[in-house]
């Protein structure tokens, strides 16, 4: 039976059919749906969890593998940076049950802060990496990855990109094949990576990679599709689809294993075509390797380093077609993502802007506090960076800067990698205020539970992390919980806490508007009472609009009745927002 599956759903299906017993992740676009789908399988068959961060997730998967189970771990590209520490040494220990790490890259940065290329991780850790080009291959390759992992005693990476992870195509559904738990036996020389033993394992890593290179053609993951031999194109993943559509007559070497590379096959292909071209998104990963083999080829000078490829671009570059002229985009205003109507983060950013504070923010929905008209954010770098950066600002500019600087971090991001930053701020005697915007979920990735929510990935009750007690235990002298919908109180607290000579934490706690099922009546503007001053519009709520005549109104279909605009109005012109 065939189903139309997202690449991510197909990976989950393939992992399930391959007998995976443990599946661990921290959510991150475009990888999240893999683990969400794993949680749809019976818990008798698959253990699933959202871990606090990618490093812990990979460590759980490594432990499960050492314990004899097939285990996988999924993350977005930048998550691999967090998990890189265990990854590089898991390459030395090898596996017992198969171990696969899935890294989902985001060329074009649809939902990310950079465009890094995960293929370099496979090369530097000396582990194999596969890259599927549609959902059917997603399902097939995850199974192959587990076989290779066990056959070569190595972790294996599977690389996805957004256009594979979030595209649906047809997949043949199969049955689950149970893979028995392997016997556990202590093997210190393999799993205790102190220098004496690790030196022995590094020898194994090199021998393993050489063996894999020798046997790579027998794995049948790479194939040549000969056609017109004037031009031969080396590609993988999404680029393969663009090449096949743009240049149906070109010869193609399609790489399913993107590390290590099949040197003999590449040499054979290069010898049989007049001109060799590498078509790959992001970095010149294949191109550099092929040039290092002494084989001339074209690549990045044609395709560029940035953004996604697409059919017309490939066709224009290689087919000699005229590019389709300037993209005739009509003059249309942009529609960037915004904080939702009723979002509990909105008031925090309004107040921070009003107080004129420097805001080191973090990764999540609240990153959108950077957008006009709130424009309240000074920095966003990576998960958890806000707190350390606020401390760094103070250490560079002195305590007076600390009183004007806050860190803003979400509940899930705080648990992910903000806790250690807060420890640093207390231990090294910073004075800034950390605002934890606690909306009781991991919002931007689609509402996954986290340790502060008291629920597991399967929606079952789980022990709930008490953030107040945690902050107190870290030694924060002042911890305050405030409701961000009470703007006067919020302003009072933020003003007082930021001026204090001690580090402080303010927890602005209110569930995500998309989760809050308690419906309130929408707010309504009494146009007779309204002075059209525009104060209510300063909070940047997409439900509040002004027509050409200057009349301000609230779109009842969007309004959640949160009442922030009522608090902004000095004339009592806004009603509604009742329970």
């Amino acid at each position, binding site marked *: 039976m*065939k189903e*139309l599956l*997202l690449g991510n759903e197909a990976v989950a299906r393939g992992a399930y059919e391959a007998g995976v017993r443990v599946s661990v992740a921290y959510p991150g*676009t*475009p990888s*999240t*749906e893999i683990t969400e789908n794993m949680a749809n399988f019976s818990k008798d068959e698959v253990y699933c969890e959202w871990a606090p961060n990618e490093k812990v997730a990979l460590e759980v998967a490594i432990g499960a593998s050492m314990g004899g189970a097939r285990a996988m771990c999924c993350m977005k590209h930048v998550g691999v940076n967090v998990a890189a520490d265990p990854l590089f040494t898991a390459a030395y220990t090898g596996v017992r049950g198969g171990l696969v790490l899935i890294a989902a890259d985001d060329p074009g940065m*649809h*939902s990310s802060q950079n465009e890094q290329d995960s293929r370099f991780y496979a090369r530097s850790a000396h582990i194999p990496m596969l890259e599927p080009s*549609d959902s059917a291959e997603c399902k097939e390759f995850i199974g192959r990855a587990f076989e290779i992992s066990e056959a070569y005693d190595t972790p294996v990476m599977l690389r996805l990109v957004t*256009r594979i992870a*979030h*595209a*649906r*195509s*047809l997949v043949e559904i199969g049955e689950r094949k149970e893979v028995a738990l392997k016997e556990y036996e202590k093997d210190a020389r393999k799993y205790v990576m102190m220098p004496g033993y690790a030196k022995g394992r590094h020898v194994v890593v090199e021998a393993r990679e050489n063996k894999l290179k020798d046997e790579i053609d027998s794995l049948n993951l790479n194939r040549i599709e000969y056609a017109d031999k004037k031009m031969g194109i080396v590609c993988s993943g999404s680029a393969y*689809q*663009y090449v*096949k*559509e743009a240049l149906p007559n070109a010869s193609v070497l399609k790489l399913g294993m993107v590390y290590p590379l099949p040197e003999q096959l590449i040499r054979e292909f290069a010898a049989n075509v007049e001109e060799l071209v590498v078509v790959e998104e992001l970095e010149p990963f294949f191109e550099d390797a092929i040039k290092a083999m002494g084989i001339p080829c074209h690549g990045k000078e044609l395709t560029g380093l940035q953004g996604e490829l*697409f*059919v*017309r671009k490939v066709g224009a570059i290689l087919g000699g077609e005229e590019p*389709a002229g300037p*993209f*005739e*985009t*009509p*003059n*249309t*205003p*942009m*529609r*960037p*993502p*915004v*904080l*939702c109507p009723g979002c509990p983060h909105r008031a925090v950013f309004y107040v921070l802007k009003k107080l004129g504070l420097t805001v080191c923010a973090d990764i999540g*929905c609240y990153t*959108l506090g950077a*957008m*006009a*008209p709130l424009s309240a954010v000074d920095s966003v770098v990576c998960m958890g960076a806000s707190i350390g950066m606020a401390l760094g600002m103070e250490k560079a500019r002195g305590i007076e800067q600390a009183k004007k600087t806050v860190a803003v971090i979400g509940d899930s991001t705080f648990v992910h990698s903000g806790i250690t930053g807060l420890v640093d701020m207390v231990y090294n005697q910073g004075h800034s205020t950390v605002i934890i915007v606690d909306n009781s979920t991991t919002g*931007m*990735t*689609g509402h996954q539970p986290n340790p502060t929510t008291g629920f597991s990935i399967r929606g079952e009750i789980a022990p709930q992390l008490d953030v107040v007690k945690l902050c107190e235990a870290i030694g924060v002298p002042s911890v305050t919980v405030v409701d961000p919908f009470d703007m006067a109180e919020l302003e009072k607290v933020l003003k007082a806490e930021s001026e204090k000579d001690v580090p402080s934490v303010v927890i602005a706690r209110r569930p995500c508007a998309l989760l809050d099922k308690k419906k309130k009546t929408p707010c309504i503007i009494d146009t007779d009472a309204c002075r059209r001053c525009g104060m209510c*519009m300063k909070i*940047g709520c*997409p439900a*509040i*609009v*002004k027509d050409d005549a200057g009349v301000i109104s609230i779109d009842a*279909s969007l309004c959640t009745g949160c009442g922030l605009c009522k608090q902004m109005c000095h004339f009592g012109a806004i009603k509604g927002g009742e329970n």
Partner: protein
Amino acid sequence: MENLNIVICGVGGQGTLLASRILGHIAMEKGFDVKVSEVHGMSQRGGSVITYVRMGEKVYSPMIEQKGADFVLAFEELEALRNLPLLKDNGTLIVNTQKILPLPVIIGAAEYPKGIVETLKEKTNVVAIDGLPLAEKAGNVRAVNTVLMGALAKRLPFDKETWINALNACVPARFIEANLAAFASGYEA
């Protein structure tokens, strides 16, 4: 059949994914190769969203590019205008005559273009439908997407029964009655 390329665009939260699921279901029923490219993540927070549906003998890229779409199904006027360049010269644009102001317009940093439907009509084949009253009349204000599906269905080479079957397969039972009525009103519009 030559590959059929359909762009579905709107604003995050408008329910564009049901339309692509129904089209995907029909493609499978008909034995076509099919790819659907969806938007997840940040744009879903009230930003522009776009879904590509491609079906035919063999589909490679999951994306539809400039002048590649046989149909653009737009849930909102500004998004219709934004995605006009994706439409083939002889393609058809089906637009829901609803305006959702983007934040840059709300705060006065940009202007919402005037007379979008008229502009579009000067440039291409346009079917303009006021979906909201039709959905209300059908019994579910949220069924605007199904009204638009009805308008698209009338212009595609699949019989009505195929669509009804797909709706039955993709819409939860408790909403099916209103959605079938909404579909019929779009089909007749």
